[in-house]
Every structure is written in structure tokens, then in C-alpha cells.
């Protein structure tokens, strides 16, 4: 059995707590996480996969396997890539309902707003919204 959304979030909170208040090491860590995202296919780097509302470019695609939603994403900035890698770690490979019900408390707990500033926080909210929209679409299809 995979870890639950809650367990993964708590794991992330633990990791970030080790970094403490040092903003620089936190940012380096986020960028490092972004570097570990799987390669994003060049053919998917197209306008319709861009998430609206992000200041930097973020591409997001999904596929469904065994009733689970899998996300793949990329960004032109390393910090944003790191942020979306956290969301993918929490939400990818879940059932649509789990994604829709997810309360993503880890974002506040790790002090993301202070780290990335208000403009990127809006971008992060746009990413979450888009991921939930995909989940809703799959759920509707599964229930059809």
C-alpha cells in the first residue's frame, strides 16, 4: 500500500523542517527537487498544456492508469519546477476522488508563501487548481 496523501505531506514537512529558517538552503533544496522530475516530452511542451495564471511557464500533462491519475510537468524556472515536483509527489498516482478531497496543508506548514512570495503563490494555486480540474474530469469520466 502506498503512503497516503497525509503521510507524504508529513514527510515533506519533516524534510523542510531540517532546513530550518534558512531561506537560501530551502531554495537550493527546492531547485534540487525540480532537477529530479522525470524528463518532460518535448512534444508536450505546447501552448494547450501551459497552466494559466503562473508567472513562469508551467506545462502539465496527465494520463490515467488503473483508475489513477498520473501527472507529468515541467517549467522554465528551476524553483517553479521544484514546487510542482512537490505537488506531483503528493498528488500523482492517486484516485481522482483522493486528489479532489486533498487538503494540501503542507504548503502553509513549510512556509511556502514566505519563500516564494505572493506572485508565485498565485502561480502555485493555479497549479493546484489545474491538477484538481484534471482529477474532476477523470472522475466524471469514470462515473459515466
Amino acid at each position: 500500500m502506498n503512503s497516503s496523501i497525509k503521510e507524504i505531506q508529513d514527510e515533506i514537512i519533516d524534510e523542510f523542517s531540517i532546513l530550518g529558517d534558512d531561506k537560501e538552503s530551502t531554495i537550493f533544496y527546492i531547485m534540487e527537487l525540480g532537477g529530479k522530475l522525470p524528463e518532460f516530452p518535448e512534444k508536450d511542451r505546447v501552448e494547450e498544456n501551459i497552466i494559466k495564471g503562473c508567472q513562469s511557464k508551467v506545462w502539465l500533462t496527465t494520463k490515467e492508469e488503473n483508475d489513477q491519475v498520473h501527472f507529468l510537468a515541467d517549467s522554465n524556472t528551476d524553483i517553479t519546477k521544484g514546487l510542482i515536483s512537490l505537488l506531483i509527489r503528493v498528488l500523482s498516482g492517486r484516485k481522482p476522488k483522493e486528489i479532489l478531497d486533498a487538503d494540501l496543508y503542507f504548503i502553509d506548514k513549510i512556509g511556502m508563501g514566505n519563500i516564494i512570495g505572493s506572485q508565485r503563490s498565485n502561480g502555485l494555486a493555479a497549479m493546484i487548481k489545474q491538477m484538481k480540474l484534471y482529477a474532476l474530469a477523470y472522475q466524471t469520466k469514470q462515473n459515466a
Partner: protein
Amino acid sequence: MMSLNVEKIRAEFPVLHQEVNGKPLVYFDNAATTQKPKSVIDALGNYYKLDNSNIHRGAHTLADRATRYFEDTRTALKAFINAKEDSEIIFTKGTTESINLVASTFGRKFLKQGDEILISTMEHHANIVPWQMLCEESGAVLKVIPIDESGEIIFEEFEKLLSEKTKILAIVHASNALGTINPVKEMIQAAKKQGAKVLLDGAQSTSHLHIDVQELDCDFLCFSAHKLFGPTGLGVLYGKRELLEVMPPYQGGGEMIKEVSFDKTTYNEIPFKFEAGTPNIADVIAFKKAIEFINTLGKDAIKQHEDALLDYAVNALSEIKGFIPVGTARDKVSVVSFNINGMHPFDVGVMLDANGIAVRTGHHCTQPLMQRFGLEGTVRASFSVYNTQTEIDQMVSSVIKIAKIKNK
């Protein structure tokens, strides 16, 4: 020339004395807005504590005092840019509104189908969009002067674009994104030969360079108080009297009228014709302290200090592997625009901020300029009179650390 006592100057700026993310604040976002000296901050408070009153028609002592202080700033500004008379100084919300005012009044009245408006590739959006709007409405055509790789205007191309169709040349004096100082005197002369009117966007130049509107012979000059150590939300439009007089009003309301009846309204004299409604009294009064601050130091001394910082920064940054300068014009104000090989400017900006260093990142409201260089944006450090070499050392050591991530 006396060199400046920077420590003493810094003591006048309360905001500089703080830590950001556990590091001493290094404020290098001066092209976006400068910090304010105590004299300006105190003047704002004192106005509300002692003098607050509506100006120009009050029959009481406070109103008279507020009016006097308000008009004193106009006189100080007249001297600051060497206008012929006080009434050529109009208060606006900022450079953007000043440009919009000219486009909506002068532009609407005098431009027609087929006329041409000339701007450059390095204009701020505020000196592009109002003209595009005017072109849509009037059928005039927008022409753009190209620039070279270093970020300088290609003068021969500019001359080729000038013709008797050119009705307005709207040109930035110093580029906010690159720092390039344009040869505006020569450009104005060339434009005048064709009978064009010239609007100078002085948002970035007024804090660094001597400006003499009579010597330059520009028809309009636009600038903002907040980039000149003054309050936000306040700007200036200088215009030659003969033009301001024939331009229709910008907005209707109080202050701008001579007489109102339901049959006909007559308009006030300049500058009041363009200052409808209760103006930004407190900020105008405080702005005078900012002008005094600059005058006391002297623009030559300010420029010398900033030039030294610019040279020092460019030399140090150029040693860093992965440093890519953007804009290497021969004549520049104290702006360093750059990228780090393999990195997005946003990421560089966030990491500098983690080290207490405030810079601007992005397209700097000059998207066509960024497109010219094939860039999404840059990191921009811009220096002011209170900055020091030690602060530049701090930035350089942070940039070294950041650049190493992708440039081993």
C-alpha cells in the same frame, strides 16, 4: 568636485537600516523606486499634522499655507528642469499619466490619418501603449527606431524614419531595462527639422542627469516623483506654454474651470486646466524636500558616485563564469541588466533576495525590447546615491554562488 559622504547620506534613509532574510538589506531596485529620505517622510507627516487643507480657494490661514507650500514645489521643479515658468509644470499621478495626458489631448487634437509617431525599441510600455491607442483612434501610424546589440539607438535608422509625416517623437531619455542614455539632444534637433513635437520620457534620467528643457528644446518631459526620492503616486508633465495652451483639457471637474454654466464652461489657465479635482497635496509638498535633497548633493556628485558604482559592479560581475550582460551601451545610467547562463532571471532574483539583496527580475515592462534580444527577461541591479561598493561586493559574492549551480 566634492565626493559624497555616503555614510551620512545613508543615515537619512531609515528603510536601509534593516535585515532581510537575516542579512543586511542591499537595496538595488532603485530604477523601480528610490527610497525616501527622512526630510520627505517628515514633510508628509507634518503636512497632515499641521497644514492639512484644500488648496487654491480657501479663505483661511491653513488653506493659504497649504497653497503656498504646494506652489513652492512647482517653483522648485521649474528650476530643477529649467522650465521658463511655473505654469509649464503640471502635476500628474506619474510618468504614465503624463504620457497618457499628452497622447489623449495633444494627440487627439492634432493627429490624423497617415501621421506618424516615432518611438524606439527600448521604450517602457507606458511610452508604447498610449501611442498605440492613439493610432487606433486617429489612424496615425507607429514607427519604431531599431537598436543595435549593445542597446544603442541606430542613429542612421532613426534619421531614415524621420519625415514630414512624423508628428511626434516620443523617446526615453535613459532606458529602465538597459541603462542606455539616448542622444536626445541630437534626436530632438533632427525631429524639429521635420516639424515634429518631442516628448521625452525622463522617468529614469531625472534622478541621474542634468535636465534643462530649454537647452534640450523638448516639447514635453514626463517623470515620476517616486524615482527621485519623492512620494509615490505623483508625477510631472512639463510642456511648453504655447502647446499646453492649445491642448484641450484632459479631465473635467473642479480646479480646471474658469466658469461653469449648463450652457457653456470655460476652462482655467494652465497649469490648472490640466489639474482637475483636489490634487495630491501632501505628496506634492513633500516632493520639494526630495528636490532639495538632490540639489544639496548636486547632480554631478551623484552621477560621479553612481558611475563609479556601475564601473565597479560591471568589472566584478564580468569575471563571473556564466554572467551575461544585457545592454552594454557606451553611455549608461547606473543600471546593470544581466542573465546567468542556464538560469531563469526569476530564480536568480529569489536567490539574491534570500541573501538580502533586492533586485528586479523579468521584462521590466519592456517586452518588445526583450523580444529584440530574444530574452524572457533579465536580472536588473540599479544603484543610487546611498549604495556602496561593499554592497556590490555582497551582491557579487552571491552571484558567484548562484552562477556556480549551472556553470561549474
